[in-house]
């Protein structure tokens, strides 16, 4: 019987893909099998549009203990017997439909990815994008998402230490909610998401399986949800308490001799988790689907296989050694059920009440089609890049008024009103709290520490996906370097529009090329990733938003520095540039141009060699104890960066050079590769030597001190006024 278009739409498979399934099976698929294909060939699980591109990314490093791709995430050696794994995952569409639960289960999902590796989750970050907050629905989404992250993260006892939030109308109606989790593992105790030998049992632990989240991966995540009038039932409901207990039980279970594999049950539920385990183990699998404990009666095998009920994990357990596993999970009041057995062979065989309802080769299911495309640069982009920035009118307001507006922008103002709703102290490792360029965590039992950050400027990526993504990598690393940490690994969260359109194909191709080029230049691997496509708002693709998560290593965590200025009389120095103020080209894609002039245009630039040398000098100066503060110049340019360091440090600053006629470009331009440090005047010549040896330009800008800010002859402002704009800007912009 030919399948109806309605059925194919429900599982987001194309007619061509359906034909390919018939071709591979040599027959029409059963409805259950079609569900399996829909899930595993979804963009979310099968990476149809990104697999070929992602393969080009650097994935090797001396520090890698487990290669990316071999397991759910690569594992990076930190020394002292410690290793770390981390990953970003998106929950954009669920959050657009049901912001609180969408965001909460996004956090829950990424945590499972990490403890499935045998790692104890030690930090959460989140990278969020919304439409402008003057819209009531956007504020509803914003409050729901923050509430969901707060509710799940706080209950589970993992500190939420950082991330970013950015507002632009491009994300109106299609917010981006990306969560990152970092886990710590004792070197050598990594878990594998696979079975060891035929006969190993497949055990489901944690929550019962219900009808929630069916078609989450295929329906919500893999096409434009705006087509769907009502997809709320495809959003799952999270239970952080259950997950907290599940973390403890699963990590404890890895010490049992019979537990050989651990896998998280996320998108596409048992289907994806069990079948990927079989693939990784190179074995067949017999699933007895009627053994799965259910929340409600009358569920079909189709529903059980595709349910995305949260807080479930799969274990591979040696036959005959399951007794202690049952005991352990009972101690934690958790269900544990044998639902299958790995076996010799190639097929996943599904049994319901003793009857085989499906038998399909594993490889047929997991080897999703791969779409290759070459992007063509659209003319509209060339036009935007060629815009004449010098035609930007100089504002009639005073420079002080513009600075205050910039500081109060929801894209720049302090994020304290958000992160004070997240527990960032639990586990007592937080050395640098949220609010700086990167969070710094100590590693108990070692002198070492890690720094973590996320970064991506969608505006810049829109104007040049290749350079923009390279800048995202550079800035994610710069955020680490300004604390003193050496970048050692990256993860990516790709958020793009509809990959079936030429523009998005161009953006994807260019963006991943830029990411690879930048990661290569830094010499660090991308250890994990996630792709969320079909992000569209009111029929328009979002800005390409390849979020980069970065992780850095501090050999001595005590030597880190923070962003705030420290003492009267210290010299303010900029590394990476030889003159204080920026030129007109720096306005490309800047916050100033967008906020004040309502324009997103210009050609972003990055000198990669300069970037790497500048970061190295900054780290070196911190390591040698020469500088007291470090802060990246980014959104809002130099004037905003100096003001932030002053406000965070609670002390004024005076910059000597006059910004000149184009004071707007000078003070608010966002040319890359610039870092602000402060130091005692005695250390200035030492820092100059370091910069000179590495051929890094630098300039002494002025001094720290007093209770006001002054920028040449342009701005003199009481620090209290800047403090008020920056600290209260966010609450004012998001007030009902």
């Amino acid at each position, binding site marked *: 019987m030919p399948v109806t278009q309605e059925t194919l739409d429900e599982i987001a498979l194309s007619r061509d893909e359906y034909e390919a399934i018939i071709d591979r099976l040599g027959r029409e698929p059963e409805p259950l099998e079609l569900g399996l294909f829909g899930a595993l060939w979804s963009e979310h699980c099968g990476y149809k549009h990104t697999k070929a591109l992602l393969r080009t990314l650097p994935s090797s490093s001396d520090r890698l203990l487990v290669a990316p791709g071999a397991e759910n995430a690569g594992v990076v050696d930190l020394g002292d017997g410690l290793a770390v794994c981390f990953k970003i995952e998106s929950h954009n569409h669920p959050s657009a439909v049901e912001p609180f639960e969408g965001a909460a289960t996004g956090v829950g999902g990424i945590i499972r990815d990490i403890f499935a590796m045998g790692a104890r989750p030690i930090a959460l970050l989140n990278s969020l994008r919304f439409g402008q907050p003057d819209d009531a629905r956007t504020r509803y989404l914003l409050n729901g998402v923050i509430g969901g992250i*707060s*509710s799940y993260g*706080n*209950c*589970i*006892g993992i500190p939420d230490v950082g991330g970013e939030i950015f507002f632009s109308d491009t994300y109106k109606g299609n917010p981006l909610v990306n969560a990152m989790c970092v886990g710590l593992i004792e070197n050598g105790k990594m878990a594998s998401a696979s079975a060891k030998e035929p006969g190993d049992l497949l055990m489901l632990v944690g929550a019962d399986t219900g009808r929630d989240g069916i078609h989450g991966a295929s329906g919500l995540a893999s096409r434009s949800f705006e087509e769907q009038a009502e997809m709320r039932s495809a959003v799952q409901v999270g*239970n*952080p*308490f*259950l997950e*907290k*207990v599940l973390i403890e039980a699963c990590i404890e279970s890895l010490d049992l001799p019979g537990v050989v594999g651990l896998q998280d049950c996320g998108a596409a539920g048992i289907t994806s988790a069990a079948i990927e385990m079989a693939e990784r183990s190179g074995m067949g699998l017999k699933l007895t689907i009627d053994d799965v404990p259910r929340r409600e009666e009358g569920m079909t095998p189709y529903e059980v296989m595709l349910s995305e009920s949260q807080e479930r994990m799969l274990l591979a357990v040696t036959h005959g050694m399951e007794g202690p596993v049952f005991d352990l999970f009972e101690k*934690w*009041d958790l269900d544990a059920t044998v639902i299958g057995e790995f076996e010799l062979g190639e097929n996943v065989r599904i049994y319901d009440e003793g009857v085989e309802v499906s038998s399909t080769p594993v490889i047929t299911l997991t080897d999703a089609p791969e779409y290759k495309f070459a992007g063509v640069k659209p003319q509209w982009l060339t036009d935007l890049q060629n815009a004449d920035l010098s035609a930007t009118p100089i504002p009639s307001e005073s420079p002080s008024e513009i600075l205050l507006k910039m500081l109060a922008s929801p894209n720049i103002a302090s994020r304290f009103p958000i*992160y*004070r*709703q*997240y*527990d*960032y*102290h*639990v*586990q*007592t*490792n*937080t*050395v640098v*709290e949220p609010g700086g360029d990167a969070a710094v965590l*100590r590693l*108990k039992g070692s002198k070492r520490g890690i720094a973590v950050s996320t970064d991506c400027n969608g505006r810049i990526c829109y104007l040049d996906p290749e350079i923009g993504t390279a800048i995202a990598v550079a800035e994610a690393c710069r955020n680490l370097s300004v604390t003193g940490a050496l970048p050692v690994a990256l993860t990516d969260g790709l958020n793009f529009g509809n990959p079936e359109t030429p523009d998005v194909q161009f953006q994807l191709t260019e963006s991943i090329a830029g990411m690879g080029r930048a990661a290569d230049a830094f010499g660090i691997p991308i250890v994990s990733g996630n792709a969320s496509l079909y992000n569209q708002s009111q029929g328009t693709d979002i800005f390409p938003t390849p979020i980069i998560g970065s992780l850095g290593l501090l050999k001595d*965590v*005590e030597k880190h520095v923070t962003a705030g200025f420290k003492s009267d009389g210290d010299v303010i120095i900029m590394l990476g540039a030889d003159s204080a103020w920026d030129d007109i080209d720096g306005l490309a894609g800047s916050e100033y141009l967008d906020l004040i002039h309502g324009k997103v245009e210009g050609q972003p630039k990055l000198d990669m060699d300069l970037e790497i040398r500048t970061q190295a000098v900054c780290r070196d100066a911190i390591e040698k104890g020469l500088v007291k503060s470090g802060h990246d110049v980014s959104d809002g340019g130099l004037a905003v960066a100096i003001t932030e360091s002053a406000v965070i440090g609670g002390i004024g600053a005076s910059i000597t050079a006059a910004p000149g006629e184009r004071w707007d470009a000078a003070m608010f331009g966002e040319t890359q590769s610039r870092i602000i440090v402060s130091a005692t005047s005695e250390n200035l010549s030492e820092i100059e030597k370091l910069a000179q040896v590495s051929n890094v330009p630098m300039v002494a800008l002025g001094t720290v001190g007093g209770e006001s800010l002054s920028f040449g002859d342009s701005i003199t402002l009481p620090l209290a006024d800047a403090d008020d704009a920056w600290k209260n800007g966010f609450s004012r912009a998001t007030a009902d």
Partner: protein
Amino acid sequence: MKFGIVVFPGTWSEKDTHHAVNGVLGQDAEYIWHGDEALDQYDAIVLPGGFSYGDFLRCGAIARFSPVMEAVRNFADKGGPVVGICNGFQVLCESGLLPGVLMRNDHLEFRCIWTDLKVENDTTMFTSTATKGQTLHIPMSHGEGNYQADEATIEKLEGNGQVVFRYADAAGNVTPEINPNGSINNIAGIINERGNVMGMMPHPEKASEKLIGGDDGNVIFKSMIENIVATLA
């Protein structure tokens, strides 16, 4: 001396507490599972922070029925020192070991911030190494820390010196503006009449080392150690 740290399913501050009293202050410490009932080997009990049993129904409302809480009650009845932190404070109130209730923060949001706690009573076994009027810089992290009780109870608590900590500014000024959750009289921590059971919302175990922002929390554990070791000698 030996601390017993109670672990309910959903507790998350037990390791931080262990690190503070054992890792930093060098005392013996063991975890006590919520089903355990034998507490005789411990010199002091800590009910740490977290979301016991998911805090379903109401914070601490399910934990009070656990076997270990019956044992904690007996331990306290015999004069044993018990401190409840955050969720532990909520459990002590739900169990009736301390008076009053902890309601939702008045602004309805979760709050994770550093607070300055004014020491109102330095004669307790939990604060004897502090000085009355001094402030302790200790973080809080809760959605339900708004301490309330009826007028008579508050009068009694205030009259007996049972209010141990109040939210204040760094200089020790107790003002409505500095109150982070709506607690009556800015109350952050109280003690029972007998002086052996204390509850507080902020987390002293999260302020155990300068590297993580400060070590004022140790004042509380050090006071306990000093007083308990003295009685053991």
